[in-house]
């Protein structure tokens, strides 16, 4: 497996405040890396820095010619426009065929789906559209900011089973920001614990109670439970 991302001594300072300090980690092709941390830990900042949207010190090296798909957490301004799903997709330069392919791999079968206004979609549908948008152009990596775990994206899939399936079908690498520990155990191949500084990096089993209390502060009880 070859390396798709290498980060060395990454420091991000915004308006004089250190948001991320001295982060080093790497991602290999086909991995699912979850970036775990409490609110304000700098998870979204890390994602945006990796996307090249913020200034930083240190080194971020993506594999040459890597194609990145980005799934933002929300698009608050999209309701200002009378955009249909199809018109939204065409904000990327894509062919009709590609749109059809992505829709079928997301198991969207409703023939009227493309004509729907973005503003009337349910939160599950909206999330699915964002994933579809990111998948257009066949990216090698998907960067995913805080999917809402609970929402039903249809056909009894949640966003994580959907992503697992996509990963298998499309052989895609995924970097995913979350504060939901369950996601890490169920879904990730690797985990980065973040609270401004990096607290751990490795397979999910490196996470234990001691680390979690460092991560979230105070005592954290872990309930292992099955549904």
């Amino acid at each position, binding site marked *: 497996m070859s390396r798709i991302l290498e980060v060395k001594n990454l420091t991000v300072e915004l308006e004089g405040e250190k948001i991320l300090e001295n982060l080093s980690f790497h991602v290999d092709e086909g991995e699912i890396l979850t970036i775990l941390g409490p609110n304000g830990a700098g998870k979204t900042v890390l994602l*945006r820095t990796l*996307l*090249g*949207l913020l200034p930083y010190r240190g080194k971020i090296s993506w594999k040459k010619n890597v194609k*990145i798909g*980005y799934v*933002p957490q929300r*698009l608050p*301004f*999209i309701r*200002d*426009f*009378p*955009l*249909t799903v199809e*018109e*939204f997709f*065409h*904000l*990327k330069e894509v062919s009709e065929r590609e749109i059809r392919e992505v829709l079928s791999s997301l198991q969207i079968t409703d023939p009227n789906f493309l*004509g729907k*206004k973005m503003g009337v979609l349910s939160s599950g549908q909206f999330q699915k559209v964002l994933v579809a948008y990111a998948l257009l152009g066949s990216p090698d990596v998907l960067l995913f900011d805080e999917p809402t775990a609970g929402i039903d994206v249809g056909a009894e899939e949640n966003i994580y089973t959907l992503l697992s399936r996509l990963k298998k079908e499309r052989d895609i690498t995924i970097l995913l920001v979350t504060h939901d520990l369950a996601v890490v155990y169920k879904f990730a191949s690797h985990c980065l614990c973040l609270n401004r500084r990096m607290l751990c990096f490795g397979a999910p089993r490196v996470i234990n109670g001691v680390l979690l209390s460092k991560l979230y502060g105070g005592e954290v009880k872990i309930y292992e439970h099955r549904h």
Partner: protein
Amino acid sequence: MSIVTSLLTGVLISSAAAYLGTLMLGRRMALVAGPLGHLTLPGIALALIYGFDITLGAFPFVILGIVLIWLFEIRTKLPVEALTAIVFATGVATAFLFLPVEQAEAAIVGDITRVGTFDFVLTAAFCAIIFSVVTVSYRKLLLISVSEDLARVQGVNSKKYNLIYLAMVAIVVALGVKLVGGLMTAALVAIPACSARNLSRNLLQDRLLAVSFGAGSCASGIFLSQILGYPAGVLIILINAAIFVATTVFKR
């Protein structure tokens, strides 16, 4: 002849403003055109006193205003809206310092009947630029409005396109003052776009409706002004407002 020239010039300005307005709504920037319009007043005053084209007088002042707001923003980090308020009030005040009273009406509510062939040609050229530049960059401008992050991830140079957009707004404001004066240009940009948004089911409809409302309100405003004797600028704005109220009934 002169009424035809006025009509053509007005319709071009009004449709270009409406077209640009469809992008402005989303950027919550529709009102920026207002202050920019007020900024043109000193320029309009100069043009009226020395008898040259109002747009040519207005344009440098719009640019000056944008540059000032931009510089103040960098220096103070205050919200752009607040800075805009400072700059536009200064513009209005300066204009009325030396604007002759008998000329004030043209400056405040516009006077499209004054336009000659030169104005028409100038307007047509500028509107052609606005329509083609905006159409070519529409997708990118829209993407930036929806999410600047998403745009930049796709390799869109958002700084460049924001600048292009601002330049188009500046041009449309400088043209708009001919039609509706220095106080109401924001309406020319915002109202047709708002009316269109009330009815449109998709982007294409949105743009078509906005431009139709822009053109229609302007043409009927100029006609009515011939009959009723009120300034065309005033009637155009009122007709636009009426269309907007009507569309709220059908709001989807």
